[in-house]
């Protein structure tokens, strides 16, 4: 049996016995075989000295049990690390940030406590996955949509508090922003409700986010100041209809006005669905449609001459390539826009959208889909499911073996810097990161890379770094990933989210005024968790007794 660092075997045994009294002995896991199931399946550190391991796991099924576990952890000074569904793959999975922690596995807390059809909101526990919530709503004939990331087995709560994103309207696809009200077990075991939930008998916990006074919800995301045991979310009412269309523009520099116009239209809620930008001339499909393109072998066809021009292009550009595209009606950029709403509204929004994009000389327009909702589920696989509020695991085709990927990976690490939502930033990020990746020998680019439009006002320039079965290659990629963090920071770009192995490097880059933000994080940690039992090291926030060692 593994023992948490700084804990005596006898103390640990007493804590485990106390945990078992709370949850039952069947829900305390201590054998190596069981505890190994809490390793990060996508860890690039497998078999390395700094791979994160749990010492044990305990699986409560109620808030009261979580409170009892936290109190026991304080009594015996046991480091604990909560996970929701444990499927944060690419960002750390189910492994603790501090090796030797006892994982508090919240998967059994899987109740959907409320569905409010009129308010379009839900209240859920952390073990509820997107699949669970989707099926629950459909079985009950609900007219509410979920907004989910690509992997549908993730936790609705966990994804939100790790600040993940999805693919519907801007007001729902930022999952933390779309939450309304939390219940949190604090590091001393005390129970807190945020927003209107702090008012006993409140009738608006899922209707008004901030309550009165300081709004503290943010400190429970990407942090270690409490265990979230309930969380409310605003849901998207099922739209009457859906329209998807493309705007194709011919020239390299057209990307700049293309993004500017798109931003204005989305910020005005004229374009309401997930926007995406592809580049047919460079052979890059829209980010949200990658699987659909690959499975259908529906990539953009290229002549040999086209391929030769592309191979000679410098970071996706050459005058010859641009001229070839214009002569052969192959657009440099293809913006995918979509609209949710009544037909008369979405038709008008599409008309207005075309009028705005006509400012780009040579812009061409095409309607791809125009259909009534709900979507026909027998045809859902023709689409990127999450854009219709339908969860799936289809995105794993990117790493799995297939005819287009004969050498499957063992996982991936997401490098996820936030860059400005401009065409200029896309060009600069391609230049900076492709040069860095080439220098570091990292296979991150083909000809050009396009960002994701998860956020309303910024792009995620997301790059998947493969995890392999070769330790030496993984070491090189981990070192390269750290360099990319530094390179990004020098250009004013920081990651929005990262795995524990990179959390120190990422947070070090947020260094304004001699790391004032990090010092505040530590001040909060000392105040809220003086014994330092909860999720030590998460996002590089260490309790006082481990700080020197961590640094």
């Amino acid at each position, binding site marked *: 049996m593994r023992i948490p660092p700084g804990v005596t075997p006898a103390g640990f045994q007493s804590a485990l016995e106390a945990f078992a009294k709370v949850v039952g002995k069947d*829900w305390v896991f201590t054998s190596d075989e*069981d505890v190994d199931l809490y390793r990060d*399946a996508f860890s690039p550190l497998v078999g390395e000295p700094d791979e994160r391991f749990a010492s044990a796991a305990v699986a409560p099924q109620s808030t009261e049990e979580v409170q009892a576990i936290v109190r026991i952890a304080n009594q015996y000074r046991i480091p604990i690390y909560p996970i929701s569904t444990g499927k944060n*793959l690419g960002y750390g999975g189910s492994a603790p940030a501090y090796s030797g922690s006892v994982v508090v*596995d919240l*998967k059994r807390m899987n109740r959907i406590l409320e569905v409010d059809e009129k308010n379009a909101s839900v209240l859920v526990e952390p073990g509820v996955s997107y*699949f669970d919530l989707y099926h629950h709503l459909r*079985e009950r004939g609900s007219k509410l949509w979920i907004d989910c990331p690509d992997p549908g087995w993730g936790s609705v709560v966990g994804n939100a508090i790790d600040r993940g994103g999805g693919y519907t309207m801007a007001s729902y696809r930022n999952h933390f922003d779309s939450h309304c009200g939390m219940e949190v077990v604090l590091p001393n075991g005390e129970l807190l409700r945020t927003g209107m939930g702090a008012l006993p008998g409140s009738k608006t916990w899922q209707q008004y986010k901030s309550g009165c006074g300081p709004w503290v919800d943010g400190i429970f995301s990407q942090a270690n100041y409490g265990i979230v045991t309930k969380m409310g979310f605003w849901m998207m009412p099922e739209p009457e209809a859906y329209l998807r269309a493309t705007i194709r523009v011919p020239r390299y520099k057209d990307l700049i006005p293309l993004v500017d116009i798109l931003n204005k239209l989305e910020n005005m809620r004229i374009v309401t669905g997930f926007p995406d930008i592809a580049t047919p001339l460079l052979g890059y499909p829209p980010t949200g449609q990658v699987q659909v393109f690959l499975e259908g072998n529906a990539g953009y066809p290229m002549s040999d001459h086209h391929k030769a021009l592309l191979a000679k292009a410098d970071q996706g550009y050459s005058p010859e390539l641009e001229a070839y595209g214009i002569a052969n009606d192959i657009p440099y950029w293809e913006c995918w826009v979509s609209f949710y709403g009544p037909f008369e509204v979405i038709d008008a929004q599409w008309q207005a959208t075309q009028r705005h994009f006509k400012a780009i000389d040579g812009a061409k327009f095409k309607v791809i889909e125009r259909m009534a909702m709900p979507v026909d589920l027998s045809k859902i696989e023709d689409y990127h499911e999450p854009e219709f509020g339908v969860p799936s695991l289809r995105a794993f085709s990117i790493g799995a073996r297939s*005819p287009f990927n004969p050498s499957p990976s063992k996982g991936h690490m997401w490098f996820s810097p936030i860059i400005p939502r401009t065409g200029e930033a896309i060009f600069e990020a391609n230049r900076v990161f492709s040069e860095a990746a080439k220098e570091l020998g990292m296979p991150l680019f083909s000809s050009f890379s396009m960002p994701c439009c998860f956020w309303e006002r910024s792009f995620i320039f997301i790059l998947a770094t493969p995890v392999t079965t070769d330790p030496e290659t993984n070491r090189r990629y981990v070192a390269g990933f750290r360099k990319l963090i530094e390179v990004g920071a020098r250009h004013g770009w920081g990651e929005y989210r990262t795995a524990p192995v990179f959390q120190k490097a990422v947070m070090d880059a947020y260094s304004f005024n001699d790391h004032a933000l990090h010092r505040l994080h530590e001040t909060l940690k000392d105040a809220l968790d003086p014994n330092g039992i909860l999720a030590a090291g998460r996002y590089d926030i260490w309790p006082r007794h481990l700080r020197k060692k961590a640094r």
Partner: protein
Amino acid sequence: MNVLHKVFTLLATLIAALGGAQAADAPDGARVFAKWCAPCHAPGITHPGTHALMAKYSGVKGGDITEWTDVPPDYVKTMVRRGISVMPHFRKTEISDRELDALAGYVTRHRVK
């Protein structure tokens, strides 16, 4: 259409699994499969597990593991607890040992011994 029909059958099983009473005393392997495996292993190339196995065993056997005849239950259990490629391992709070037994029995029900 057979593929589509099978997907719908799995979906119906999944809905039944989620909506029905908890089978505390007798886990149903088909339900466990529908909940935990079908999103990747239902028939068709839109399911990454099936697509991966189609590519891996091209010309030898199909990608639908529920149709395989040549793997023992322990093989299924090992895959679930250890994972392979981008398929992660599954914890016991997700698939209990008893559910895993039922799942392995279901997946290997066509096994030729």
